[in-house]
């Protein structure tokens, strides 16, 4: 029993680590505040589930989850290319709400607020990942792959170009960087991995509905990114670990469950306040979060 509980937490940490790493590429490295990240998570989840439940194999659903999310990433990047700082944040916020509204109202496809139950566990190379342990192995493999790919991209010239855009777009352009194309690629790659996370989430929980992909989900992932430190992959993983584990002790002190949910929000808020006062750059970060929101350059 305790083993299952711990594995459950580990699987959640893995899924959120993928999400927070994907968001830090966009927000931490490129300096684009995305308040619609949960939409990519949702698109991945629905794409994978709809395909697998239509009879396609899991690997196809998983790849399509990333692919479709990346496509939406490119679409969102087009209107966003002219926006910076808080204006960009508002545009991405609107995008997240549009996607959530579509999920709620396109009932022929998504069953709307009823959600999609009975999602099958994934099957790969004849192995069915139906136990907690095998599912954990699957998610940790995806986490490691995500880390390796993003680390390779971000340590190279792509990552340096993204950081230059975060620092000053005009100067980056004057040094020959195709800023629009780089931003579009950043959106696409970020959405790709969020889509993968969505697929893993849906096939783990085996039920999805639009309430799993709200703004508060984005805010939680953003908090992981900020806590870990902008522009740090290790920080993003650390942020996911801390924020998944932090509210867990509340389960054991015998409070009514209606209070636990509220207390969790208070803990997140309190943590954020302490963070801003004591360590504004986050645990492993390079830059203060406020710098990307109020940056007018």
């Amino acid at each position, binding site marked *: 029993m305790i083993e299952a509980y711990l594995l459950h937490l580990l699987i959640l940490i893995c899924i959120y680590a993928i999400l927070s790493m994907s968001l830090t590429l966009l927000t931490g490295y490129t300096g684009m505040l995305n308040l619609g990240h949960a939409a990519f998570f949702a698109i991945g989840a629905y794409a994978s589930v709809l395909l697998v439940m239509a009879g396609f194999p899991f690997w196809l659903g998983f790849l399509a989850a990333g692919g479709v999310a990346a496509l939406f990433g490119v679409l969102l990047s087009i209107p966003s290319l002219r926006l910076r700082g808080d204006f960009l944040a508002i545009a991405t916020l609107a995008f997240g709400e549009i996607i959530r509204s579509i999920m709620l109202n396109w009932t022929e496809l998504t069953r709307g607020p009823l959600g999609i139950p009975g999602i099958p566990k994934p099957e790969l190379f004849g192995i069915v990942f139906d136990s907690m342990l095998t599912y954990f192995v699957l998610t940790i493999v995806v986490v490691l792959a995500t880390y390796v790919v993003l680390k390779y991209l971000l340590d*190279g*010239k792509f990552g*340096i*170009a993204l*950081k*230059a855009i*975060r*620092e*000053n777009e*005009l*100067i*980056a*352009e*004057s*040094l*020959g*960087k*195709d*800023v629009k194309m780089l931003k579009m690629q950043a959106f696409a790659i970020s959405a790709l991995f969020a889509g993968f996370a969505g697929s893993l989430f849906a096939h783990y929980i085996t039920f999805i509905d639009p309430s799993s992909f709200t703004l508060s989900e984005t805010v939680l992932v953003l908090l992981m990114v900020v806590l870990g430190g902008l522009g740090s992959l290790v920080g993003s993983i650390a942020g996911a670990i801390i924020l998944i584990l932090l509210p867990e002790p509340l389960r054991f002190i015998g409070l009514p469950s209606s209070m636990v949910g509220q207390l969790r929000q208070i803990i997140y808020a309190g943590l954020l306040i302490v963070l801003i006062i004591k360590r504004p750059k986050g645990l492993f970060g*390079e*830059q203060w979060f406020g*710098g990307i929101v109020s940056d007018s*350059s």
Partner: protein
Amino acid sequence: MIALELKSISKHFGGVTALENVSFKLEQGKTLGLIGGNGSGKTTLLNVITKMISPNSGEVHFKGKRVDNLPAYKIARLGIGRIFQIGGIFNNMTLLENLFVATNSGNEEEAERILNEVGLVQKKNEKAATLSGGQQRLLEFGRVMIRNDELILLDEPFAGVSEGNCKKIEEVIGKLQKEGKTIILIEHDSKRIKRICNQLIELDEGKLAKKTNID
């Protein structure tokens, strides 16, 4: 050979005329001094050449090819580099990273050699924000050097810089001149400008007022 040619460039901001019918040719390997009072259009002229703003009319030609219809990043890739009046560096990135943005090679040895030439190699792994104003300009020089830009636009590189760093900057400009680079320099100190430049253009309220050759 003509490196840069401007053909009747005009730029208005609302009702304000920043540049009016400015034309000139600049030969390869020459250094042009750009002078004029505040608001005479000097920086706007550099912005037009690098396409940070589009002119209302006129053409810009670089090495015989029309470039004013290209986006800014493509113009930069042709070999036009720039040093900004303020805020031209990436503060939260290290000196090496600042150079790596400018080049695609990612070659650390080459970057260190360039940093050595501008006298900053001992700070290679520090954040650029820790540099003094003059050192920040020198880092920008490092960027145009590693890019091997052919046309280099300098927007008041000596402003607010200590005497020691001014000397160093002048030395670096001298090196670029020896390598045959074409340079446009905005500068207020008339002694210094006569020491560095081959030609002078004076702008007055956006119009080309005077053109002189210095020998």
